[in-house]
């Protein structure tokens, strides 16, 4: 029998590896292995054969858009910095990766650090910057170590430093560690943090291209954005622009997780249907359960329900339904999940991570969380649902930075697609998925119960009454809804949640 190659598995078949091209292929701590896969050829080409304007034009033509969440066209961003004359400019790589569950950028840094070094030097050349900073979260020690090794090796080979490839272009690269606050991934907060100050956002404009790091024109891009640059420069804009949809070119890496058979890192061409990711690459939903929704964009994004499974993934299609690609987290949820509870999970995260500088975000998200808690506890009303929605729009429109502006998205998306679940919580006092404890009760079906006493023996509060071989009954006043009886009765299935 023939051994199945990795490339023929369902998981890999539909993937296209551009940003991840060297991850899992080369030794990331060896500059020689990076040379062997055309490493630093793009930098050499840019410095010896292309003018800065030509490099920027290639980036524009490729259609690459920022992979850090916003989706801003990269070539255009670079042209803004290039247009501002200054005695000093900077390139910054955002490797803060704060979305819970996301690890795309970590994988690129750990698997292909030289690609980031090379891309940042190219960016420096065409924007007129001579120094770059990589801002990595301190929780990524392996990524940091491999970046340090890469920077040292590049310096030794004169690929960083003075007069690179004899072109007169100088470029130095530094690493800065972040303490892992979510808001420090926001570009202005990130630069404030590099400057040694408390990582708080500031209003834009001025944009970083005008007044960025240390007050100088700065280009700030995400790790995955940079990872795409060397091949675009080396092979030209066309191959990249040929892939994807009209307005979203190339491929995107997602960290696929949650209730799905195959978890891991997947890179797919833009325009791939969500259904293909879930059913084919992901191998479907485990344990015989049904697909309910997929959360993209983490705490800034929204959920996509079954009726949109055939959506072609790109920036604009997702924002049209109130979601976003975000940085690439993709959490699949089956029908055992309560969407009100999910919204609460993400909002709880943003309430914790809000830096507190502006009141719509600091106070507004807290009030929203209180309303959600009230609904989950079974004390909510229809007015609360309306108030929650109104407040969500207020926070979205009035917050200073992207954290507050996007924090309400998980609530708004679930209200949009799963409003009936909110309504069930407040009018029927029921959690349809059986998650919100205050709204469910454990019961024993007298028809099924064989009186084996297993449940009564595990109940921590003695809430179950009954004699041997007689149907048992749960005293709801004593029950603390721990679920132990349901687990104990797993053969007979007489215990049920309602």
């Amino acid at each position, binding site marked *: *029998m023939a*051994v*199945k*190659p*990795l490339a*023929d*598995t*369902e*998981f*890999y078949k539909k*993937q296209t590896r551009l940003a*991840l091209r*060297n*991850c*899992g*292929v*080369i*030794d*990331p*701590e*060896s500059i*020689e*292995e990076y*040379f*062997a896969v*055309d*490493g*630093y*050829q793009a930098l*050499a*080409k840019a410095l*010896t054969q292309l003018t800065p304007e030509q490099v920027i034009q290639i980036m524009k033509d490729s259609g690459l858009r920022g992979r850090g969440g916003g989706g801003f066209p990269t070539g255009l961003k670079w042209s803004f910095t290039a247009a501002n004359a200054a005695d000093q400019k900077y390139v910054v790589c955002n490797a803060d990766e704060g979305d819970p569950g996301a*690890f795309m950028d*970590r*994988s690129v840094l*750990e*698997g*292909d650090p030289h690609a980031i070094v090379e891309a940042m030097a190219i960016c420096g050349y065409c924007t007129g910057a001579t120094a770059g900073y990589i801002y990595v979260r301190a929780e*990524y020690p*392996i990524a940091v170590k491999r970046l340090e090794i890469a920077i040292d090796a590049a310096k030794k*080979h*004169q*690929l960083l430093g003075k*007069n690179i*490839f*004899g072109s007169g272009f100088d470029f130095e690269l530094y690493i800065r560690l972040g303490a892992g606050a979510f808001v420090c991934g926001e570009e202005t907060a990130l630069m404030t943090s590099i400057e040694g100050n408390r990582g708080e956002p500031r209003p834009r404009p001025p944009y970083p291209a005008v007044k960025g790091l240390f007050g100088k024109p700065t280009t700030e891009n995400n790790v995955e954005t940079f990872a795409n640059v060397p091949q675009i420069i080396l092979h030209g804009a066309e191959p990249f622009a040929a892939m994807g949809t009209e307005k979203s070119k190339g491929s995107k890496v997602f960290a696929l997780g949650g209730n799905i058979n*195959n*978890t*891991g*890192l*997947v*890179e797919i061409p833009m325009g791939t249907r969500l259904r293909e990711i879930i059913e084919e690459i992901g*191998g479907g939903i485990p344990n015989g359960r049904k697909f309910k929704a997929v959360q993209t964009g983490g705490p800034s994004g929204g959920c996509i329900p079954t009726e949109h499974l055939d959506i072609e993934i790109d920036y604009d299609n997702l924002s049209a339904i109130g979601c976003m690609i975000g940085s690439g987290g993709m959490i699949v949820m089956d029908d055992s999940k309560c969407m009100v509870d999910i919204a609460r999970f993400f909002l709880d995260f943003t309430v914790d991570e809000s830096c507190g500088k502006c009141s719509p975000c600091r106070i507004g998200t807290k009030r929203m969380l209180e309303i959600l808690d009230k609904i989950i506890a079974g004390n909510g009303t229809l007015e609360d649902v309306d108030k929650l929605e109104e407040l969500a729009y207020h926070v979205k429109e009035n917050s200073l930075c992207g954290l507050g502006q996007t924090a309400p998205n998980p609530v708004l998306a679930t209200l949009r697609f799963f409003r009936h679940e909110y309504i069930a919580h407040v009018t029927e006092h029921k959690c349809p998925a059986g998650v919100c404890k205050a709204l469910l009760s454990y019961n024993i079906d007298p028809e099924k119960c064989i009186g084996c006493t297993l449940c009564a023996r595990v109940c921590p509060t003695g809430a179950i009454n009954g004699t041997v071989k007689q149907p048992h009954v749960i005293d709801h006043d004593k029950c603390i809804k721990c679920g132990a009886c349901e687990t104990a009765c797993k053969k007979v299935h007489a215990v049920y949640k309602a």
Partner: protein
Amino acid sequence: MTTLAELNAARDAAAAKMKQTDDGQPITRVVVGLATCGIAAGAKPVLEAFEQAAQAAGLSSVRVYQTGCIGMCQFEPIAEITVPGQEKVTYVNMTAGRAKEVVEKHLAGGQVIEEYTVGAVTK
């Protein structure tokens, strides 16, 4: 290095070094995923086991390298083996013991251990 010609020479030398040992034997390349996901799943002892077993078996053309994330984090540790002229084989859920077995049966004996390959655990 200051010219494109030097870079090209470095590329060609590196590519050759990945294919051939100094004394001209074609290299059998073993790569073990040593990103956070792999290390957390126990990839370091797997890499060491490959090195030791290959040496013990006197397989002088086997080279063991670390690499980044292959993408299937749930099946880590993952090791991929490329014997010259043959299709790459992907082994999943590796342990030091399995690595030793792979060296003996596959690298020394030429027999792929199919039950450890990716095709055995996923469609």
